[in-house]
């Protein structure tokens, strides 16, 4: 028996209108799916289209960017056909999102308790009083110490790590089916990052929430996700099981990306060598990006990307 995917993105294209009525493909004809409870990672460098993909899924693309083709099937419904009202109801309830910068994503003028409680009022029709109680519980679930007091705190009174925990509490308040995390720990210190990642992982595993994790950090992706899509110039160039991807990358771009990373411990084991320069593997990279079309060059057989 095959499991129905929770999110099935089919041939998604996001484009930017350019001069002369032409369209620049920012995301070009990509397809991937996420199973219920699965953690799926999209990894890539800036400009690869990974963040735009996540915004397209949740329907928050900013003009003039727009989804120009494809389907985003979530629990059997194509989100592209939903009205903006229905989409609003879905966001925060069934699909939630956390952003990179917890300071700007939180309202500085409202207590964190109110911002969490709002989710219960908005999506579950609770009264403010009930919602406030639930907010204390939500804050406790993300392991913020002394939640009864902290619900009254304002975002600026908390550290970056604590604010990101609050964001997680807001996102997971209504037990969504899918959590989209766009570079959730990039602004945080290493040790705080580890705690926040572990928290996301544990909470989502316990609740069966699927995760779409967007990151530039191969380490974060490796530690969090079961499957990974590597994005480059608006395309998914390789999609694999995480273990396979890291142990035996197929696509030259993936190989380049892994070789470009100074891996902890590799100097001790293998001595110091120069890191891989992707430009020497994929020639004419800049021209490729400019033309925004990517033909996998020295691609091994079998590594073709779906579909």
């Amino acid at each position, binding site marked *: 028996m095959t499991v129905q995917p929770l999110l099935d993105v089919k041939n998604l294209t996001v484009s930017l209108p350019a001069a002369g009525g032409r369209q620049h493909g920012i995301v070009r004809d990509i397809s991937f799916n996420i199973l219920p409870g699965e953690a799926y990672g999209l990894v890539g*460098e*800036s400009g690869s289209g990974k963040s735009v993909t996540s915004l397209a899924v949740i329907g928050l693309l900013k003009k003039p960017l727009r989804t120009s083709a494809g389907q985003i099937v979530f629990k059997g419904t194509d989100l592209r056909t939903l009205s903006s009202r229905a989409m609003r109801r879905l966001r925060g309830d069934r699909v939630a999102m956390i952003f990179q910068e917890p300071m700007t994503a939180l309202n500085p003028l409202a207590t964190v308790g109110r911002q969490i409680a709002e989710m219960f009022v908005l999506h579950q029709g609770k009264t403010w009083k009930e919602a406030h109680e639930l907010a204390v519980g939500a804050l406790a679930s993300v392991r913020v110490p002394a939640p009864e007091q902290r619900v009254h705190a304002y975002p600026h009174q908390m550290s970056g790590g604590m604010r990101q925990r609050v964001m997680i509490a807001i996102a997971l308040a209504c037990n969504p089916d899918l959590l989209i995390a766009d570079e959730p720990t990039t602004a945080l*210190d*290493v*040790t*705080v*990052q*580890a705690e926040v*990642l572990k928290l996301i992982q544990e909470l989502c595993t316990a609740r069966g929430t699927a995760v779409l994790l967007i990151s*530039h*950090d*191969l*380490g*974060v*992706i*490796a*530690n969090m996700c079961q499957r990974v899509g590597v994005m480059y110039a608006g395309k998914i160039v390789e999609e694999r099981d*995480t*273990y396979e991807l*890291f*142990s035996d990358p197929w696509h030259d771009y993936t190989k*380049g*990306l*892994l*070789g*470009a*990373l*100074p*891996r*902890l*411990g*590799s*100097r*001790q084991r293998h001595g*110091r060598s*120069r*890191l*891989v*320069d*992707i*430009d020497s593997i994929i020639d004419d990279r800049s021209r490729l990006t400019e033309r925004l079309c990517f033909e996998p060059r020295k691609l091994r057989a079998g590594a073709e990307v779906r579909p």
Partner: protein
Amino acid sequence: MSEPLLDIDQLHVHFTLGGGLLGGRRRTLRAVNGVSLELHQGQCLSIVGESGCGKSTTALSVMGLQPPTSGDIRFRGKTLIGAGAPDRTDRALIAQMVFQDPYASLNPRQTVYSSLAGPLRLHGKRSRSEIDERVAMMLGHVGLLPEHAKRYPHEFSGGQRQRIGIARALILDPQIVVLDEPVSALDVSIRAQIINLLLDLQEKLSLSYIMISHDLGVVEHMSDRVAVMYYGQIVEIGDWRSIFSTPTHPYTRKLISTIPDPDAILREGIAETLPEVHPPAGMRFYPEDVSMPDVYAEPPPSELVQIGADHQVRCRPAG
């Protein structure tokens, strides 16, 4: 061992907060709290730690951009602090800096040429051809073309800007180059190119680096010696191999084991293979609890204890 190129001796940088008319209670933030470091010719010394640990403040003090509260910084035995310190112009020939943010580190109103030629003129180069030659050579060193000199910073990508930043830092032939998170704002592939460039330049021009970083992978790859800082103090220091093969202080171990390491998934991550360590006899690590420091209190006395040929860890007497 030969005389160090740079000798930081018991550096303290304290900031007074509050006070004033309405400021409430005066408190002293101990950003750098008794840091001693030596940099030798041709080495790369890295200072690692998380935000607020004082690594950047230490670097700024070396650059003369942050006056220390107490302590001394000596270059080839001559002090850089207080009376007898060289003036700004002479100091420029001692140390230069590569900044973290390639977008904020170049003057948007200056062409690459004037960013690079200005310092040469300031330091007495008058002949146009000599300046042009030096600028072109420097651009060549960092992998750019002579015609790039005519352009403005916004015409370059982040990686290219960082190359320009490196060229600017090297244009006066400084004795020391301070790298402040030189690659953390860059994409993975660009990061690799800049790291390679920095290593090539170090070899070619026998440069001495002080690198400030939070990225342990980069630090291991580039450094000869590593100092781990935690809230104003060095908690562990040694040659790169000792630090990464037998990290000893609880904070170093925490850093190494929490770094998201893609090799962890291959069951060969460094965190799984850390050897077990114990504090030296009669000692315990200081600080032992690395979760909630009080940055305002004066820390209890502690010392860096030798545990290897070039490997020290901060401890205090047990009991």
